């Protein structure tokens, strides 16, 4: 990679950013990041649809969007815990116990309203 200039052309900066990112994440974290990117994309698509086509029925939009946001947030929480050095086993059992009711809460509440 050619050395980047200090006056940053945004494109080369972003590419460099991606390189640094790829180098510093473990496979597990990268997997979680891929999942988070997918959920984020889903949320963006949902929101764009709501703006362009309309929010009727509002229940359905809210349910889908908030469950996307919720999944994203919980995923970020998991990633934070793993990145901080927690092995999935350490406190993972308790964390998993907490995550499944939390996740089911999100899913249940968002779908019940539909």
């Amino acid at each position, binding site marked *: 990679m050619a050395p*980047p200039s200090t006056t940053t052309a945004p494109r080369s900066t972003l590419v460099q950013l991606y390189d*640094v990112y790829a180098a510093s994440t473990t496979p597990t974290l990268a997997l979680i990041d891929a999942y988070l990117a997918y959920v984020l994309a889903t949320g963006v698509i949902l929101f764009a649809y709501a703006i362009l086509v309309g929010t009727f029925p*509002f229940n359905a939009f*809210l349910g889908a969007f908030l469950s996307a946001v919720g999944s994203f947030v919980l995923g970020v929480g998991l990633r934070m815990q793993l990145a901080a050095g927690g092995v999935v086993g350490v406190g993972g059992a308790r964390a998993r116990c907490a995550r499944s009711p939390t996740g089911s809460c999100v899913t249940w*509440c968002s779908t019940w309203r539909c």
Partner: protein
Amino acid sequence: MVLGLPMPSTKQQEVLLRSLILSLICVVAFSTRLFSVLRYESIIHEFDPWFNFRATKVLVERGSYEFWNWFDGRSWYPLGRIVGGTVYPGIMYTAATMYHALHALGFNVDIRDVCVLTAPIFSGLTALAAYALTQSVADSSAGLLAAVFISIVPGYISRSVAGSYDNEGVAITALLVTFWLFVRAVQTGSLLASLLATLSYLYMVAAWGGYIFIINLVPLYVLVMLAAGRYSRRLYIAYNTFYVLGTLLSMQIRFVGFNAVQSSEHLGAFGVFGLINLYAAVGWVRSFTSERVFRAVGRLLVLTALVIAGVAAFFGTVTGFIGPWTGRFYSLLDPTYASKNIPIIASVSEHQPTAWGSYFFDLHALTFLTPVGLYFCFRKPTDENLFIIVYGAFAIYFSGVMVRLMLVLAPVAAILSAIGVSATLSTYMRVLRAPPAEVIAAIAACEPSAAPAQEDDSASAGVSPASSTSPPSGLRHRGTGGGAQAASSTSTTSTAGVSSKRSKAASSQARRRRGAEDSSSRPSPPSLASLPPVTHRRDVAAIMVLGTLLLLVLYVRHCVWVTSEAYSSPSVVLSARGRDGERIFFDDFREAYYWLRQNTPEDAKVMSWWDYGYQLSGMANRTTIVDNNTWNNSHIATVGRAMNAPEPQAYAIARKLDVDYVLVIFGGVVGYSSDDINKFLWMVRIPGSVDPSVHERNYLSDVGSYVVDSRAGKALKQSLLYKLCYYRFDEMMTVGGQEAGFDRVRNTMVGVKDIKLKYFEEAFTSENWIVRLYRVKKADDMGWM
């Protein structure tokens, strides 16, 4: 060994003691709220609780589905009220659950008794929640004090006596539990704690409209944490889980519905949600890039995010998608807003600003102990302390805006005062528990290393007799017995002020020498270094401890007195003391409501001012035109217009509303001052805000005062309410020395005598003339009245 059982360890003793104390606190909290039940009977009080009671009966008798979809056609006639969608169902479900649980166990209690005692039961739980919260923030001794304070504080008792079956009775419990669980979540970063906090928040949303306070306070706290540089993974997890799940769950309550994402009151939470995610994202990007790259990208990222947020907020507000702040909550930000624009909010007595007297009356010692607690919180700021500080600050502000919000201040005042008192007591008790001067001298004498230490800082007050230059003088002091303590401590008075630093230096030096010393010569009494530094004189400490105890005793006395005298009145039954001190009861309200219940047709419609709507529906079981829900301002304005208009106009309005009976409250005979004549100006102002033909000026006297005697305003003398209240009043002897027709509340002779009614006829007047019922005359088949 006692009875062959091993002696419990200190830890176990502590746990036992603490559990005992907490159980006693629950019992006290329950008992202190029972005054009115013991004096009168088990009855629902006031106004709002009657509606909650009626709704609970529907829930218990007809089931949850019927309740959730209940349309009440017998209130707000002819509009009706969608109760299922406009009620906070928490307290009804709570009472119904307890009712069913007791029935399942075989106790066939009446639903009324369950409702009456719901609030006292939950007050015990509130005390436990306060203990838990304070224990997370400070320590368990502060927790115990907080539990005691909150169990008897009058500001909370006023809304949770037995019989006051109102939302706040369970909502304050939910509030404290939510706060406790959220603080635990921030402390531990546990997802489980966040989940539990959210479930508790759901209960709070179900219970009370004051949940807005939580959904704004928690984001404010997060904002303060971010500003204070205390961002952490735990905070992120706690808040995000709370916000996303909380929003989802709060939308399950029909009354909240889409408000959770559409109203301005929830916008703050959303904004902080975005902000903390942005903060986390920026921090994450920064963690794996170099500074240069980060600066280029980071600014771009933040700027894009803020621009998107700003545009969205702008469009949302402009298109009306995001509703503006509702009047009730806007008046919290601008206290003068309601009195200028929304008279119906301004008219509620609970919405008036708080006077200083109320602070002392409702909080007593906590008023000035709260700043003490704030000080101690600031001394050692932690994540949890910061929460209590933020909660305290905002509660203090809001309690100043509205009397009703004293209720929100009471818990945090109790918690902060407990922290303050506990810290004070520990400081001084430590002094008192330190061994007396003679013992210290003896220890000093036993320890050779103490001698060089004391030569280094001879003025040190930390180890007091060591400051006297030689052990023999310490022993001499010991010899003089009782005066010894005073004598040895006088030598330290001058240095007491700067004692702490020096004492720490002395003890640390002694500790170092101790460490170097051979421990084999250490005697069994504690070494000098192991004693905590004595920072105050013993007599000062004793005075402080005794003073604090005295303060607590006075607090308890005040709280019990206030509860007994001021907050235990059912409002449905009035009482006064006769000339020889006996209690006289005025049961006029129930007399009139039961007359209505037994002597009028089932579908009779009763028109009265909105204050009495719930009681009418609950006790008289008749259809009402307006009630305390006050959801429709124009309907109330119509009723107000009927009350303040001359008789023919009022009759036209009454016929239009299909009214059969009119009910007025009149206190002139017994001196009951919350009657309709005193509320009359609101019956002028509220219609005045809707109907421009009503001018308040016409109802006042020539000089602009509100009087009811012969100087009364012309419109007042002609109004329906005046006529209905004073009809036949000129035949009534009220006070011995005066002529007939002397109004004991306004302290004047009534202005108009010999009132004639054309379209109304008197149906019933209660024993003390407090409630008066009039029948609306209807034309018969021939058109004659």
